[in-house]
């Protein structure tokens, strides 16, 4: 069970809905659409040989500088097959105007809080989630703090310039 085998199999199954294959540091990485993410998770979960049935992490990423506005937000699923010791990373890119993605709680119970956390920090809305509320931040917060437009330092300060202290 190698990265190539799984990648070829996924292409056979899902055709053009899986793309951007890569393997940074040996971990198979691919992107898909939000329509196909749950079918892929279910397919990998139910596959008799792969048995990729453990959700390791689920988190969001914000790319405000991406030239393509359709790729401003990203939800990353990292899955693990405990039987074959095989890891796979699946990304779904979303546009800010339409931050909807179906919930993975139908496949993994553990996705519940991870999705709430992603919603809490990035504002991604997981359709069908049993209780999509903030989890770590206060309920009455009106912004999504992990988005890049919210700077960590007080922006009015002039002594702590980015060239010396920032990114």
């Amino acid at each position, binding site marked *: 069970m190698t990265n190539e085998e799984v990648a070829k199999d996924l292409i056979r199954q899902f055709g053009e809905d899986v793309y951007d294959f890569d393997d*940074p*540091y040996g*971990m198979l*990485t691919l992107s898909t659409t939000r329509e196909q993410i749950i079918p892929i998770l279910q397919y990998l979960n139910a596959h008799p040989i792969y048995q990729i*049935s*453990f*959700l*390791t*992490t689920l*988190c969001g*990423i*914000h790319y405000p500088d991406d030239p393509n506005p359709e790729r401003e937000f990203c939800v*990353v699923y*990292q899955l693990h097959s*405990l039987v074959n*010791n095989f*890891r796979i*990373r699946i990304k779904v890119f979303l546009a800010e105007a339409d931050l909807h993605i179906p919930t993975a709680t139908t496949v*993994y*119970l*553990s996705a*519940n*809080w*991870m999705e709430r*956390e992603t919603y809490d*920090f990035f504002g991604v809305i997981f359709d069908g989630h049993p209780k999509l509320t*903030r*989890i*770590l*931040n*206060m309920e009455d917060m009106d912004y999504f*703090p*992990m988005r890049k437009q919210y700077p*960590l*330092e007080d922006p009015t300060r002039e002594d702590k310039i980015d060239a*010396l*202290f*920032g*990114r």
Partner: protein
Amino acid sequence: MSTVLDISNKNAAGSDLPAKPEESVQYVNELTTLNLGPTHPATHGIFQNILQMDGEKIVSGEQTIGYIHRAFEKIAERRPFYQITTLTDRMNYCSSPINNFGWHMTVEKLLGVTVPKRAEYIRVIMMELARIADHLICNGILGVDTGAFTGFLYLFEERENIYEIYEEVCGARLTTNMGRIGGMERDLSPEAIRKIRAFIKRFPPIMREFEKLFNRNRIFMDRIIDVGGITAERALNYGFTGPNLRAAGVDYDVRVMNPYSSYQDFEFDIPVGKSGDTYDRFMVRNEEIWQSLRIVEQALENLPEGPYFADAPAYYLPPKKEVYRNMEALIYHFKIVMGEIDAPVGEVYHSVEGGNGELGFYLISDGGRAPYRLHFRRPSFIYYQAYPEMCVGTTLSDAIVIMSSLNVIAGELDS
């Protein structure tokens, strides 16, 4: 003027008592809402559980977390890599060295730095000592929560000894900030080795005594056997890892499945339970303490000679002595501290076996001096979701025991 008497309020006996109501008060089966936490002695940290109770029985529960959320993931986006170590300290503060080294290894993986054997062995020794300290706390506290304080007191002294070893190795006790990217900040001193040897010698009888007190203790067994059980399938679906998953019968251990830091060199067993109940979790942790001790012994026995840091001057902070005498070291010191050195572009996931399970670091670097995005996989955060399900149908006192045996660390829960 005659007095008008209202006789309707008089009962048959003619007294002034109000008339008996037709029907007696209806006792509806009303649920009690009980707040377990945020500051409850049994939560050992700050998080809340709102339980719906029907008398003694728990009908449903809901957790509220985030009381000590410190936005580590956001802070990390502005810090150079070496400054993020101090953030990891404060996640699972019962076993900070594991978090520290897990982070260092993630960065080393990103940079492609190979760490010399000696540094890896020192790391293994410290990580296993940290695991012992973590499990000692968990099992000791489980005793306290069932009303047996003695065991905790016995073990706490040993944790103190482990902290003294930390102190000898890195100068700190709780938030250790141990090691550097590329190795250790200093070699194991003779005093540290002496302390570790002393610990290996002194600890087993005390641990045996603890086990004698608890393992076959009728009261303790009655109290925790078949309490908070979870099946292997359910545990996997809930994202359990570490001792809690192994107690349910799945032998997943990151140290064995994806060996890091030379874990493949050591002989040790993975204890597994069967029913995933509180007793199994307790026993798995006890056995893991013995296995960790075995690893420490082996690592100390076979501690290789050689350098204790990698030859990666651009990333490893040079020893302070060098900085004052050596031009190169001074330049690199300045460059590293001021964040002049850029990391390669890439994304990497690395996980280590933390005290509570798979502790993962998902790091995305865009080539800057700080991560573009850093996500921590905190095992407590993920498996704590299962807590209401494990509690439903049990009593409040069982809920306390289940929470205790899950070893939920508030710092790790909230990050």
